C-alpha cells in the first residue's frame, strides 16, 4: 500500500523541495536578526532532512544533530579546538549561567550561545514537523500557506524584501503540493507506480508550474493599493530615513539626483513666517538635468559675502514698491541656509553673522566666524519684484540667440532626451510668439491636459527611461518635482534658459497680527516644494509655477497702452485650437503605441482604471452568474450531455455516461450512500421515478465493471433508457 512512500527517488524530490522551502524561512530570519553563519544553519537543516529521508535511527540522528550544534557553538563562539576539555568546560559553564538565568526569570541574562541553541532546537522541531507532514500525512498545504503569509507579512512590515522569495516559494510550494497530492491520490487508489510512469505525472506538473510562473512574471501587475508602511514604521522607530527605496518621506532633501517614487506626508513644522503675504521661500536652484534628476554644475564664480543689513544682490531686482516688506522667520528645524523670498534686500540675524551668496545656485549660507551656522530666527527685508507686461511682450525669440554664454548652463539638456519631448515643446508653443508667451503656454499645459497631482504611486524611472518623458507621456501623474522638472526641460528644449528651484511654499496661515498688518504662516515639511525660474531676455529671471494646485506667480505690472482686457482676448481664440491639438496628439500617441505590446497593456489597464466601477460590477456579475450556473448545473447539464453522449460510441462511453448519470441523480437530490450498492440504489431510483430503466442500466454496468466485459454491453441499446433518466433529472 505504501509503495509511493517507499519510492526513494520520489521522496528525494519531495525532501529537496522541502529544503528549499525551509531555506526561504531561514533567510528573512537571518537577515532581520543580523545573525551570521547562514550557510551553517542551512547545513544543519540539510543534514536533518537527509537523515529523516534516509530514516536513520532516531538515536543516531539526534546524536549527529547534537554533535553538529556543539561543533557550531565551539567553532563560532570560542577559539578552542572541538575535542578539548576547554571546549567542554566552556559549554558546561555557559549552560550553568543560562539555567540560573532561566530559573531566576532573568531573560536578559541568557547568552547568545544559549539563544543559538534555542534557535537550533526550533529548526530541529521545524524539520521534524515537516518531515512528519511530508512522509506521514502527505500534506504540506498548511505549511505552504504559512510560508506565504510569513514572507508577505515580513515583506510588508519589515525591511526584508521578498520580491523574488515569494516567486520562489510559489514555484517550490506548488510543485510540492502537486507532488503530495499525486502521492495521496496514488495511495487512495492503491496504485503502485514505477518511477517511469510517475515521470508521466511529474513532468507535466513541473511544466505547468513553469509555464504559469513565466506567464505570471510577464503579466502586468497592479501597483500596491497602500503605500509601503516600512518607511513610516522605521521613521517612527527612529531608524534610518528614506534611502534609495521607492518611498520617501516628504521634506527638504539635498540629493535630487534620482527623482521619482512615492511620498508620505509629514507635518513636522519647518519654520514659522511672519509676513504681510504668503511667499515662496527659495533655497537654491539646480541647473544640470541628468534624465533622472538634478545636479549642480561646477561652481563658476566665487561666493559673495555680505554682513547683517547689507544689500544683497541677487538676479532678481527688488520691486519698485515704496516700502520694502519685512519678514521674520522662526526656524523650528536646523537649516544651514537662509530661506528667502523673491526680491530680497537684506538679512538681519543676531550675532556677527556673515552671509555667503553663491551665484551658482543662489543659495545663501550664514556663516559664524567662517563656519556654517544654523540660525534660530531670521529677519529679512524684501521687495517683491514686478515685471512690466510691455517689456514681457517684447521678449522676442531672436533675442535668445544673443544671450551671453553664461546662460548656456541653463540651456543644458542630456543627449538622451527623447525627441518626443522636444516635439511636444514645439507643439505647445506653436502659437506663442514671445518667449514669455511660450513660457506661459508651457506653464499652463499641465493643467489643461488631465495631468494629476499625487504623492503616491509615482514610479522611479527605469535605467533607460527619462524622468520627464515618463511623466509627460506615460504616467501624467506626479508632484511638484515632476511638473517643475518637466517645465524646465520643455523650456530648455526651446532654448529658453530655465532652472529648477527648491524651497518651501507659503505654508498655512495660522494667525494674524492686526496691529502690524502681518500674517503668520506655519510651514511644515509638507510644504517643501520645487518650481521653475526662466529667463526672459531683456527682462530677467522670472518665477513660474507649473504644478497643479499651487498659486505661486510673478507679479505682473499691466502697464500696457491698450485696454487691459486685451491679453485675455488674445488668449481666448488659442484655447480651442490647443485642445484640438491635444486630441490629435493623444490619438497619434495611442496609434504609435498600439502597435506594440506594452501599449496594449497600458491601454487595457487604463481602461480598467477608468471604468473601475463597471469592471468591478462586471466581474461581480460574472462571478455571480458562474456560481448560479454551477448551482443550477443539474438543470442545464443534461441538455449538453444528451447530445454529447448520443453521438459517442466508444468502448468506455457507457461507463462514463453511467457515472455521469449517477452524478446527475446526486445533484437531483437522490444521493447514493457510501455503503449502498449500485443495484439497491437503482431499485430505489426506479421506485422513485416509477421506471425500470435504472435497474436495467445498472445490470449492464455491473456486467461491464464487475464482470470485466465492457465489450458485451451495447451502448446503442441502452441509450434510450439513459436519456430518459437523465432528462428526468433536469425536470
Amino acid at each position, binding site marked *: 500500500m505504501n509503495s509511493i512512500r517507499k519510492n526513494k527517488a520520489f521522496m528525494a524530490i519531495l525532501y529537496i523541495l522541502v529544503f528549499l522551502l525551509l531555506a526561504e524561512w531561514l533567510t528573512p530570519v537571518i537577515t532581520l536578526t543580523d545573525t551570521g553563519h547562514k550557510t551553517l544553519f542551512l547545513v544543519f537543516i540539510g543534514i536533518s532532512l537527509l537523515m529523516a529521508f534516509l530514516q536513520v535511527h532516531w538515536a543516531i540522528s539526534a546524536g549527529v544533530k547534537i554533535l553538529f550544534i556543539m561543533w557550531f557553538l565551539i567553532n563560532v563562539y570560542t577559539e578552542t579546538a572541538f575535542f578539548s576539555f576547554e571546549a567542554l568546560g566552556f559549554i558546561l559553564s555557559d549552560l550553568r549561567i543560562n539555567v540560573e538565568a532561566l530559573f531566576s526569570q532573568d531573560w536578559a541574562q541568557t547568552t547568545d550561545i544559549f539563544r543559538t541553541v534555542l534557535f537550533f532546537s526550533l529548526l530541529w522541531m521545524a524539520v521534524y514537523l515537516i518531515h512528519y507532514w511530508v512522509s506521514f500525512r502527505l500534506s504540506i498545504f498548511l505549511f505552504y500557506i504559512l510560508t506565504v503569509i510569513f514572507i508577505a507579512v515580513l515583506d510588508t512590515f519589515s525591511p526584508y524584501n521578498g520580491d523574488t522569495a515569494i516567486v520562489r516559494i510559489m514555484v517550490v510550494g506548488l510543485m510540492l503540493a502537486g507532488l503530495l497530492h499525486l502521492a495521496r491520490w496514488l495511495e487512495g*487508489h*492503491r*496504485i503502485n507506480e514505477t518511477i517511469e510512469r510517475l515521470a508521466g505525472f511529474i513532468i507535466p506538473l513541473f511544466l505547468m508550474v513553469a509555464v504559469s510562473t513565466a506567464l505570471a512574471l510577464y503579466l502586468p501587475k497592479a501597483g500596491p493599493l497602500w503605500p509601503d508602511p516600512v518607511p513610516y514604521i522605521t521613521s517612527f522607530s527612529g531608524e534610518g530615513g528614506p534611502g534609495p527605496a521607492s518611498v520617501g518621506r516628504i521634506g527638504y532633501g539635498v540629493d535630487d539626483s534620482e527623482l521619482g517614487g512615492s511620498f508620505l506626508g509629514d507635518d513636522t513644522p519647518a519654520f514659522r513666517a511672519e509676513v504681510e503675504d504668503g511667499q515662496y521661500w527659495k533655497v537654491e536652484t539646480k541647473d544640470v538635468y541628468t534624465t533622472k534628476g538634478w545636479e549642480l554644475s561646477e561652481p563658476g564664480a566665487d561666493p559673495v559675502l555680505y554682513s547683517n543689513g547689507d544689500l544683497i544682490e541677487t538676479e532678481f531686482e527688488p520691486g519698485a514698491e515704496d516700502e520694502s516688506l519685512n519678514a521674520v522667520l522662526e526656524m523650528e528645524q536646523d537649516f544651514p541656509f537662509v530661506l528667502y523670498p523673491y526680491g530680497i534686500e537684506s538679512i538681519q540675524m543676531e550675532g556677527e553673522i556673515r552671509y555667503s551668496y553663491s551665484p551658482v545656485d543662489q543659495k545663501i549660507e550664514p556663516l559664524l566666524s567662517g563656519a556654517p551656522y544654523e540660525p534660530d530666527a531670521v529677519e529679512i527685508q524684501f521687495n517683491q519684484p514686478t515685471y512690466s507686461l510691455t517689456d514681457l511682450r517684447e521678449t522676442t525669440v531672436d533675442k535668445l540667440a544673443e544671450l551671453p554664454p553664461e546662460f548656456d548652463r541653463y540651456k543644458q539638456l542630456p543627449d538622451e532626451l527623447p525627441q518626443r519631448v522636444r516635439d511636444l515643446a514645439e507643439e505647445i508653443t506653436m502659437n506663442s510668439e514671445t518667449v514669455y508667451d511660450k513660457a506661459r503656454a508651457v506653464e499652463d499645459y499641465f493643467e489643461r491636459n488631465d495631468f494629476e497631482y499625487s504623492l503616491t504611486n509615482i514610479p522611479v524611472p527605469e535605467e533607460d527611461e527619462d524622468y520627464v518623458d515618463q511623466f509627460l507621456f506615460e504616467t501624467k501623474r506626479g508632484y511638484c518635482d515632476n511638473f517643475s522638472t518637466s517645465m524646465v526641460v520643455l523650456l530648455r528644449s526651446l532654448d529658453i534658459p530655465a532652472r529648477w528651484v527648491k524651497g518651501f511654499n507659503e505654508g498655512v496661515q495660522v494667525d494674524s497680527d492686526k496691529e502690524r498688518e502681518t500674517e503668520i504662516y506655519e510651514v511644515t515639511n509638507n510644504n517643501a516644494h520645487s518650481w521653475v525660474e526662466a529667463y526672459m531676455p531683456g527682462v530677467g529671471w522670472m518665477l513660474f509655477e507649473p504644478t497643479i494646485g499651487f498659486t505661486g506667480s510673478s507679479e505682473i505690472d499691466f502697464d500696457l497702452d491698450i485696454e487691459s482686457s486685451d491679453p485675455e482676448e488674445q488668449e481666448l481664440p488659442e484655447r480651442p485650437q490647443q485642445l484640438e491639438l491635444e486630441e490629435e496628439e493623444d490619438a497619434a500617441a495611442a496609434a504609435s503605441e498600439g502597435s506594440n505590446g506594452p501599449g496594449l497593456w497600458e491601454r487595457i489597464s487604463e481602461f480598467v482604471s477608468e471604468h473601475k466601477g463597471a469592471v468591478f460590477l462586471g466581474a461581480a456579475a460574472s462571478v455571480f452568474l458562474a456560481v448560479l450556473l454551477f448551482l443550477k448545473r443539474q438543470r442545464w447539464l443534461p441538455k449538453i450531455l444528451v447530445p454529447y453522449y448520443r453521438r459517442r460510441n466508444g468502448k468506455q462511453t457507457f*461507463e462514463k455516461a453511467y*457515472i455521469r448519470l*449517477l452524478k446527475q441523480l446526486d445533484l437531483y437530490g437522490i444521493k447514493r*450512500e*457510501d*455503503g*449502498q*450498492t*449500485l*443495484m*439497491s440504489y437503482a431499485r430505489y431510483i426506479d421506485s422513485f421515478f416509477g421506471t425500470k430503466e435504472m435497474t436495467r442500466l445498472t445490470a449492464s454496468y*455491473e*456486467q461491464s*465493471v*464487475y*464482470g*470485466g466485459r465492457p465489450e458485451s454491453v451495447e451502448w446503442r441499446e441502452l441509450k434510450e433508457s439513459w436519456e430518459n433518466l437523465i432528462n428526468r433529472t433536469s425536470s
Partner: protein
Amino acid sequence: MNPKDQLNKVIDNIEKVIIGKRDIAELSMVAMLSHGHVLLEDVPGVGKTMLVRALAKSVGADFKRIQFTPDLLPSDVVGVSIYNPKDMEFNFRPGPIMGNIILADEINRTSPKTQSSLLEAMEEASVTIDGVTMQIPKPFFVMATQNPIEYEGTYPLPEAQLDRFLLKIKMGYPTSKEEMEVLNRSQLSMPIEDLQSVISLEELLELQREAKNIKVDETIRSYIVDLARQTRNDPYVYLGVSPRGSIALMKSAQAYALLKGRDFVTPDDVQYLAKFVFGHRIMLRSEARYDGISAEEITERILTKTKVPVQRLVGQ
C-alpha cells in the same frame, strides 16, 4: 440446463418441506457449492434437521446424523478399528462422518475433544485413524447446529473452530401463515418421505467447480478486504475477521453469484453474505455486550460505512 435453474430446482425441492425458508435453503446451497460448512444456530424444533435431510435427498446424497452428547467420543464420530479374531486383523468401521451430508446436532453439547475431531475432519475433508488417512467421499457438507439458550452443560466452540464454518445461519420461527401450512402438510405424513432427488452428485460436483470460476473483479476483492479490515479496527471488536474470513466471503459470494445466474460477483452479493460470514467471526468486547450490540449489527454498520466500489480501478 444452466446452473441457475439446476440450483433453483434443488431449492424449490427443499421448499416443499421447509416452508418459507427459501433464503436459508439458498445459503445452505451456497455453503455446499463453496466447499464450506454451515453452523445453524437456533432453538430446537424449527426444522434444522428437516432442512438438512431435504437438502441431502434433493441432491441424492448420503445423509448421516450425529447427535452430540457429553459422553460422545471422537471414535464415535470418525470411526474405529476393531480387531477381527477371524482374520486376525483390525478392521476399520467408518464412523458417521464418512458420509456426504452430515448433520452434527447440538455440537456444543459434546466435549472439546470430540468437537475438534469433527472440526478437523471438516477442514481436511479426511480422517486419520491409526496412522491411516482416509478421504471422506465428495461432496462433503456438514451442517452443525447449536442451541443458543441452554448454557448449562455446554462447551462453547472456541474462536478458531468457529472460523471453520463458512456461514452461520439463524433459522428463525416461521410466520403464522407459514406455520399453518407446516401443520397442513404434516397432517397425514411427513412430506420429507416423498422427496425425490433433482440433481445427481456428479452434477453437484460440477456446480462446485463452476462456482470457483465465477469472476471476482479487483474492485470487489478490494471491497472485501476493506470490509474485513474495518472489522479489525472497530472499537467494539476484540478480534476481527481473519484473512480466512475474507476468503470465505469471496468464495461464498462466488457461489451466490452462480446461484443468481451471474458469472461475476457484485457488491450486492458481498453485502448480502457478509452478515452470515462475519457474524461468528467477530469477537466482541464486553463493552459491546453492555451496549447491547451484536456482531451482526457491527457488520451492518461496517457495510453502511464502507464505500462500495462503483468505478473501474484506474489503470485496469
